[in-house]
């Protein structure tokens, strides 16, 4: 009969070894599978490159704005920091985390969506940030949202508590030498898009409108972004990315409330709002991957439209009343 205390020590030790080995494998798989995402996040959260234009938003930014097109038309150095599923909290967090290392960009182009203001879960994919806890903003945000963070390197296996089943499934794919680039092999400065895929008829099927529930605290994060831009002299521009025949906003029963909220903010702060849901390209299915996302052809077409508009704005000293004339 082994003393119960020894039994406890033995089983804890064995479990520790299994967990460390298991988490090591899962980490390795995730790194392989999401190699490109890690590269983008490293650029945003760790590097110090100076960019003139920073694009923030969800997948509708990530898949829609090609910095190559923008830079060639506007003669800028821009970066697309759009993140899948990101909402207003994550935009605010990414901006703060970006500013930890990078100099402030001249322009911040923020794509606001209806779901941006709904915060059932503040960070959409917390696990993607867990290896970036050297950035104090990321560490604090993860910790504030109940995720273990900031542990010493020897306890890095505790990262496992942040991974969900999707991450673990991705890890298995990664261990099988698969990569995440499922809808594109074209990627440039944070932009990722599909070359071939077009909108399918099923995407246009009618949906019962769902209520996104604008979270009460979401406006605070928007105001925080505006305040940061004001303090650092960043020109702020809001956009609404193209969608196929306005079908996306019809999915949400509180779309009007969100647009009213955006228009109120825009008016109060003299922020240019580039609402691109009624462009002629929005009725061409060959430019869309699905109702909400442009494909590569659509993204390039839209980027040209956006860049042309941005160039006009860059020459207009009248925007963002907090900017002194001639500051930029």
């Amino acid at each position: 009969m082994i003393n119960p205390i020894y039994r406890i020590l033995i089983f804890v030790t064995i479990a520790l070894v299994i967990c460390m080995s298991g988490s090591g494998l899962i980490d390795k798989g995730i790194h392989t599978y999401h190699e490109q995402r890690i590269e983008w996040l490293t650029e945003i959260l760790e590097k110090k490159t100076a960019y003139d234009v920073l694009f923030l938003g969800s997948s509708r930014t990530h898949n829609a704005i090609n910095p190559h097109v923008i830079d060639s038309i506007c003669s800028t150095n821009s970066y697309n920091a759009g993140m899948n599923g990101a909402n207003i909290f994550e935009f605010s967090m990414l901006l703060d985390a970006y500013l930890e290392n990078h100099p402030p960009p001249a322009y911040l182009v923020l794509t606001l969506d209806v779901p941006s203001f709904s915060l059932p879960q503040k960070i959409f994919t917390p696990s993607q940030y867990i290896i970036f806890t050297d950035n104090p903003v990321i560490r604090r945000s993860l910790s504030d949202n109940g995720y273990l963070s900031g542990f010493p390197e020897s306890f890095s296996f505790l990262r496992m508590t942040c991974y969900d089943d999707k991450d673990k499934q991705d890890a298995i794919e990664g261990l099988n030498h698969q990569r995440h680039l499922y809808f594109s092999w074209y990627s440039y400065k944070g932009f990722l898009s599909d070359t071939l895929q077009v909108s399918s008829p099923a995407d246009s099927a009618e949906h019962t409108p769902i209520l996104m529930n604008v979270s009460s605290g979401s406006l605070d994060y928007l105001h925080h972004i505006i305040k940061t831009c004001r303090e650092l002299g960043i020109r702020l521009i809001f956009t609404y990315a193209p969608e196929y025949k306005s079908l996306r906003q019809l999915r949400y029963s509180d779309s009007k409330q969100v647009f009213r909220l955006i228009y109120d903010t825009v008016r109060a702060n003299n922020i240019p709002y580039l609402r691109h849901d009624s462009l002629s390209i929005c009725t061409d299915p060959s430019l869309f991957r699905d109702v909400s996302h442009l494909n590569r052809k659509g993204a390039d077409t839209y980027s040209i439209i956006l860049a042309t508009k941005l160039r006009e704005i860059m020459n207009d000293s009248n925007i963002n009343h907090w900017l002194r004339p001639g500051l930029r």
Partner: protein
Amino acid sequence: MLFNSPGFLLFFPVVTLIYFLLPHRYRWLHLLLASCVFYMSFVPAYILILAAIIVIDYTAALLIKKSVDIRYRRRLLYASFVGNIGVLAVFKYFDFFIQNINSFLSSLHIPVQHLPYLHLILPIGLSFHTFQAMSYTIEVYKGNQEPERHFGIYALYVMFYPQLVAGPIERPQRLLPQFRVVHHFSSLNLLEGLRLMLWGFFKKLVIADRLAFYVNIIFSNVGHYHYLNLLEALLFFSIQIYCDFSGYSDIAVGAARTMGFSLSLNFNRPYYATNIREFWQRWHISLATWFRDYIYFSLGGNKKGTARLYMNIVIVFALSGLWHGANWTFVAWGLLHSAYFLIYLLILRHKKQSARFNSLKNLVGMIITFSAVTLSWIFFRAENIDDSLLLIRQIFTRYSGFPFQLVFNDKITMSYFGIGTLWIAGIATVLMLAVERIFPPDFSMLNKKPALDIAFCSVILSLIFLFGVFHKTSFIYFQF
């Protein structure tokens, strides 16, 4: 404080360690303070409600013991009931009552102003500790229990942190004397307690919280899914609620065991029950016996004729449903179980006893019981009666305009349930059912098999860590 929160990882070892470091005479105070901290981590002000219940029952019990006048003793007992049930009525049932009155008035088209709601937040585990407190005064009234004169120890009986918010609902004869016993540190108790806690965490974090993703997607919009999706969700909820609640009980019993306390068995492999009576002898045992001893027997049990027996069963199950929540869905759930029970009694009455094909009969009985219980969870889980009926209609008419989805790959729903999730949940459930079939509920068998014990605990701890769902999720039974 949730058992599955990082705070508890610190709270539990610190409280247990200090418990053994302190001399016996201070231990009650330490446990009482720890229980207050535990309870106040939810809504601090609600400790006052608990304090009021404790004072009422403590005083009532002392006065009951002191008095020889039967009528006065009965009045004191009723006063204690009014105190406990009054708190329940205000915090749990008042808005439900008002809602029904308002609906009734509206249906009669009486032009009166609607009665106002209180909109109070329900104190965590209120039904559990009021029932535990009531069992104390009842037992003192019946003369089965001496009143506890030490106010602190009585308060600890109501507030003992492992079982404070979700049971097991302990009887005073079992728990109160344990606070007076000197518990010396026992490495065997520690091992047994930790083992049970691990098992509870496994059921909660690996199975229940994972299945909850699927169940929540479906039950948030029952009208929008294929009938097979509804059946899948129902099966998952059956497993989820068992793993969630029995997992909590295992953690509670295990945490108490590490300090030398022995709490009641609350679940005894209920899904292996071969009939509905057996199910209720195995499911939420502490509540089922509470209703049996204090309501069913008080109503006359089976001693007042068949018609009265049937009525008593219906009353007890309806009340048991209402205990769970202020919603007609819970009452419907209770009534459905009473119907099962009555059908079972009728079959029993007309069935010829035969020992032939016993194994097959047991298997068939197990499948029928599990199916019936699973069907009843529709009312337990659905938001309202309309949703419950819609779900039943869709399952039985097999009509829906939506395609079947075995899994949900769209992470936008915030409740991703991919094929990997299904595999993990499936394997873990089979493992859980096999382990509970092989080992007794307290796993005492493993004490004599160190190699198997070490292997079992290592695997379970690793599985919790590698496949646990560590997002903040509450226990289903906390709401009661």
